[in-house]
């Protein structure tokens, strides 16, 4: 019987794979961005799963801190990407 | 007690998943916005139970934030439609 | 207190007090929390007043409590009703739209009215324009108008025009 950490960890890996695949296969920028974000969630899941020791046990805080950092970084990047996208669409026939 | 709580959590999770998947299946676009609403109620319920189960009162704060943000998401969704109608 | 409180500062105080109470509820009793709490409450109050100007009506306490009780019961009924309808094998619904003209003052109370309608059995507010309300009813045959009127009456009971109770 696998435990929760394994389950979520594996889910994370699969999500990362799905994200990576879509990021390569999809051609639309917004879709790619979504894919990369999904991939990020997958990686974060692996980290958090690693930190999880049980429903009533304190987890390892370091991966938590890492993932927090990762989320902020991911949002920053997403924001920049979307701004670029919108600027691109505005810059029609320059 | 704990076992019953676990049972409750599982049932709620299943209910939630069922509703979500159902909505995804039949989905008109607005149905998907409904999902955010659903998250506001089911998600918060799930968090409350988890708070008890995992003895983590901090999850109440998460529930609070989730409740607020699910509305924000609803507003964001629907405002979009408004703009579009204006356009 | 030498200075007579103006209407505005009074409602500001009330708003502030309500928000401070909420802070207390979410942040807990620790006094240190007010280091952040005080500025947060002040800021929130300011913003709140900016967004939603003070009401022109006063709320009466007892009818309000009665309203809360009514509301709780109705929403319980609403939940049970919708559960019964969905769980019945034939899915007893006959959806339809209704327009409703309210006599409540425009603004906050209309909004409250709209919100509460959504929690009553079988009705859902779909649009509020001024005093007119577009409703969606789950069972158009069950005559939702009666309960709407009751709701409107109870809301009206809660409020009192400003100046009604006090002199100028």
């Amino acid at each position, binding site marked *: 019987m696998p435990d929760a950490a394994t389950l979520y960890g594996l889910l994370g890996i699969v999500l*990362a794979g799905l994200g990576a695949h879509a990021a390569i296969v999809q051609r639309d920028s917004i879709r790619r961005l979504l894919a*990369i974000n999904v991939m990020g969630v997958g990686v974060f899941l692996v980290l958090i799963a690693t930190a999880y020791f049980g429903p009533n046990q304190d987890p390892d805080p370091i991966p938590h801190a890492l993932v927090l950092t990762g989320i902020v970084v991911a949002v920053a990047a997403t924001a920049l990407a979307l701004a670029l996208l919108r600027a691109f669409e505005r810059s029609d026939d320059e | 007690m704990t076992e019953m709580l676990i049972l409750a959590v599982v049932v709620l999770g299943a209910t939630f998943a069922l509703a979500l998947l159902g909505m995804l299946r039949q989905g008109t676009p607005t149905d998907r916005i409904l999902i955010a609403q659903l998250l506001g109620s089911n998600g918060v319920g799930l968090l409350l139970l988890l708070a008890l189960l995992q003895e983590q009162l901090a999850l109440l704060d998460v529930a609070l934030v989730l409740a607020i943000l699910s509305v924000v998401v609803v507003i964001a969704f629907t405002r979009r439609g408004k703009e579009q109608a204006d356009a | 207190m030498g200075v007579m409180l103006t209407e505005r500062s009074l409602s500001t105080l009330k708003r502030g007090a309500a928000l401070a109470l909420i802070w207390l509820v979410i942040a807990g009793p620790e006094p240190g929390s007010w280091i952040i709490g005080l500025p947060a409450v002040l800021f929130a109050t300011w913003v709140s007043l900016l967004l939603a100007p003070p009401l022109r009506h006063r709320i009466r306490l007892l009818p309000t409590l009665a309203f809360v009780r009514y509301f709780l019961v109705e929403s319980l009924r609403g939940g049970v009703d919708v559960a019964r309808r969905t769980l019945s094998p034939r899915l007893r619904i006959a959806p339809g739209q209704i327009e409703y003209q309210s006599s409540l003052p425009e603004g906050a109370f209309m909004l409250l009215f709209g919100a509460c309608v959504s929690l009553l059995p079988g009705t859902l507010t779909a649009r509020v324009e001024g005093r007119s309300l577009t409703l969606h009813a789950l069972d158009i045959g069950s005559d939702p108008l009666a309960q709407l009127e009751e709701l409107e009456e109870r809301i009206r009971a809660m409020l009192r025009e400003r100046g009604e109770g006090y002199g100028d």
Partner: protein
Amino acid sequence: MNESMSLTIILPLLGALLAAAWPRRGVFIGITAVLLSGLAVGWLWFSLLADGPSHQALGGWDPGLGIRLQVDALSILMLSMTALVALAVSVYASHYFTRRSQAERFWPLWLLMIAALNGLFLAGDLFNLYVTLELLSLSAVALTALGGKRAGIAAALRYLMIGLLGSMGYLAGVALLYSAFGTLDMQQVAAQTGDDPVSQAALIVMTAGLLLKSALFPLHFWLPPAHSNAPAPVSAGLSALVVKAGFYLVLRLWTEVFPDTLSTQGVTLVAVLGGGAILWGSWQALQAERLKLLAAYSTVAQLGYLFVALALFMSAPPGVARELLFGALVLMALTHAFAKSSLFLAIGVIQHRAGHDRIAELDGTAQRLPATTFAIALAGVALIGLPPSGAFLGKWRLLYSAISLDQWLLVVVIGIGSLLAAAYVFRVLGHAFGRSALSVQAIHSVHEEWPALLLALTATLLLGFGSAWIWPFLEHMA
């Protein structure tokens, strides 16, 4: 000692904050910050020479719990490269931007990029590297889009996506490593890696991510548009410095974190890709119609050399030849940094003067800019790998190792690559000698022409004739 390590990161960071808060003084703040952080690198040199390689636990927490900065021969060389190139490019940039608003946006991002590079070269923590990588790529992307042209924005967008994908791959590896070894400190991780599945999986995803970021063929497709559409000083920084970051990390990971994990097949694959990069990049550079595109494809090819060298290094038996190959590799990276930045700056001058950078129409312009043309020639010499450039020495050792290891295919590839490089460089220089309606008027704008020339001279004369100390200095690394 320890202060100087932090200062190389903090000073440009402070500069960036100041420049962001006070954009009117951007040029002054920018040049000052670059100078000061260069001085900090100088200080770091002194301490390194006095005390040898060292590290510092930031915040005073033990590595593992806290983050470690480390400095050794390789990192100080990379830092120095960054400092010098950044200084020259900054001087150039101080007069490059014609629109004030562009200049004001340039400096904070430019300084952030330098801070990120310095941070990356000093980092001793795997997760911290992820953050610095992201800082680097975000500032680089923002700089790429600075021109505001549609093509530049599109290129920046693609660059960003690729960068994100790459760093996600890297981060996946980090996550796996942490879950297995319970630490993020590079040395502590290194002590536990082996040829177990965890190390291998982590190595593969991290390397794949970084290869994407460092544009190794065939993952290079994003680089040419990004590097060729950015403003000239930005292109210089990107091509000279930023792509090196990915390569540097691969180098660190392979040699220090995963020395026992790497498989022969992996090394072979990278060698093959490197060879592909050399041929494809050079060929595309030869086909390019615009100077900047040529320079960008040349970067693809040059990265190929670096990776080929790395692959050879990994497969070389221990010994003097291997140590020397390491030196050669670093020297090639350094030479390329100076040469390529020089090339881009020079192209920028031409673009300014001629209003375009189409190779076929350069005849008239090049002759009026003798110093710039000379810079292009010298940079070109370094890119081809001819004497007296540092790349000549590097390529000599590279070929030496390839021959010693019986890698004749690589020898052939490097040979063809060199000839193609010569072809594309001299395709441009041919125009410099082409006849034109001449009114010989040299421009004498020190800011505009000299940075490129000085960089080119560094790549050729200084690194060619004055770099003998680099090898023994790097000896312990191999």
